[in-house]
């Protein structure tokens, strides 16, 4: 039976790089264009996971487990971050009855 790194290596590394770049760009565009805080949040997660994917791919190709360990840590921290972020969004909603980030311009004054 093939090990997971071997399976990963069945696809050329360039494909992984292209895929994660595409994912990352989608994430960036999402953050820049969307005004709904939840969707912005999801776009951020997308960027995060694009990086995770790249880390896993490189880790397999270079036979270095450090990359995969990073991925685990990032996922754990991201989970905590999501919890906090969602809580903030809930609080925003309670205060201004919307989650449109375009209306969050109170920093100016």
């Amino acid at each position, binding site marked *: 039976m093939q090990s997971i790194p071997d399976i990963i290596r069945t696809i050329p590394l360039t494909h992984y790089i292209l895929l994660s770049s595409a994912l990352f760009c989608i994430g960036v565009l999402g953050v*820049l264009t969307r005004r709904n805080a939840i969707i912005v949040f999801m776009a951020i997660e997308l960027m995060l996971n694009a990086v995770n994917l790249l880390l896993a791919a490189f880790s397999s190709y270079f036979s270095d487990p450090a990359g995969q360990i990073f991925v685990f840590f990032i996922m754990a921290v991201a989970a905590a971050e999501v919890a906090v972020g969602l809580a903030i969004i809930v609080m925003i909603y309670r205060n201004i009855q919307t989650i449109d980030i375009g209306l969050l*311009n109170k920093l100016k004054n």
Partner: protein
Amino acid sequence: MSSVLLIPLLPFIGFLINGLAYPKLSKKIAGIIGTIPPLAAFALSIQLFLNFDGNAQIIPITDWIQVGELSIPLALQIDQLSIMMLLIITGVGTLIHVYSSAYMSHDNGFGKFFAFLNLFVFFMLILVLGSGFVTLFIGWEGVGLCSYLLIGFWNQKNSYGDAARKAFIMNRIGDLGFLIGIFLLFQEFGTASYQEVFESVKSGSGNNLGLIAFCLFIGAMGKSAQIPLFTWLPDAMAGPTPVSALIHAATMVTAGIYMVIRANALFELSPEVLHFVGWIGLVTALLGAAIGLFQNDIKKVLAYSTVSQLGYMFMGLGASAYTASFFHVMTHAFFKALLFLGAGSVIHAMSDEQDIRKMGGLKSKLPITYLTFLLGTIAIAGIPPFAGFFSKDEILAHLYHHNILMWSLAIIGSALTSFYMFRVFLVTFHGDFRGTDHQAAHLHESPIAITIPLIILAIFSVGGGLINLPAFVGGNEFLAHWLNPILPEGANESLEVHFASLEFLAPLAAAFLPAIFAFQVYGSKKSVPPADADIRGIQKIIYDKFYIDEAYDFIFVKPINFLSNFFHQFIDFLIIDLLVETVGKIVKSSSNELRKIQTGTIGFYVFMMVVSIAIILAWTLKSWMF
């Protein structure tokens, strides 16, 4: 040794107590606290005088400045000269403190006044006790400060404040010269202590001695009110009368003479500077005496007389007659303090009137003041056998052998002195009373605290000549022998004056004839000096002090004012302000524009962040990509 330290320290303690606590102390206590320190210092000085063994003593206090090769110790020096000065300062000082306790008794700033007086005595003692030029300079500046504080003591009046500032600034000009002299001393000898400097000077080392002596003398010109820096002294009469007596007649203004006597080794080796000193003294003496002729403010007359007498002392120094000059410092301290205090007593009785034209006939009302003032007048006029006769004639005798032209001019000055002093005396005390009824009702002899110092000073003014009675009239020349160790060799050769010679008779004539003339004009005829508007011709020019103040105003003050205004309005406003404000305006307007970027919209911030990251990334990867 500790007793020597106590001499300057006691007045300082008095200053601290009175200065810090005067709002809480009653006048009586403040007066006692103020008077005891100079009295105790006087007692200690007498003890020092009696126990002095003839050898100069240095009492180190601390190493003050230690930088590299430079070492300036703080130390006191006890020798013949400083002991004599100690006696004058603390002795006359004590009398004037006693006098002030009555004279200032109606003043609200009584305790403050005594604090300043004590501080003055402290600095004056430091000045004469210092063992080097730097220590002397501390006292020198300190007395200048106290003089400023006391001239402007009644600072509610603007003109008094102006007088105080004038004195301070005039002194600063002289002090600059003095300071440069000290710097040159350091450059030349690496030290400013008397003993080391004078030893090197005597052994023939050191260049620039003339320049150093000249710079030091500039300081003396400021402090001792010599031409051209004398105009502050008459204005200094704005201060309370005891201050005029203590600071501007008896002690501080003689600091310049003290300094020259102290540095005689230096001055002896620069004959051209000594020559200059003599002529400055002569011109000052004549000018002061001439202006004194027609002044009508009793204190102004005494002030110009002080300027003139200081001129005599410098004349004496110019002729290397150090003992005679110092003798005159002493006797002048007695009779001028007496005259000032007497004038104060008159002013007190006349309810603060100082114009002699509004006095007259005070003889019967103020008998003690009258008598003591008369004695002081005789003493300063140089009528034998009073103190002024011996001291002034000793200077004149030296001048006679030094430079006959100076001598004859000095005789003229002496005649002027005699005339204006008798004029003031007669107009004030003789004739008819010319004051208001209110003043007449108020006329009274001053209290005992005022008359006692007058009487003591009068005794010294009469008998002060005995201190240095010349040998040819049977004296033992005590002062000359006493000062001998610190003076150059041969400086004390006693002069024999023949009774029937011109040298002896001319000063006598100069003392008596003008006095008789003054008696004719102001005594028998009872003439009164004319009112301001009626003064004409040359008398007007003299009355207005030869317009020297106006000339200084025109030559120095106006151009400087003009220049300051020019710099203020043109350079400052148009150039500097423009530059500075433009920089400020640019920053302000650009930040005004830049702050518009801070929209507060999160989306925009995020966009800027991504763009910036992209740019940084592109920049970093640039070399790798191409």
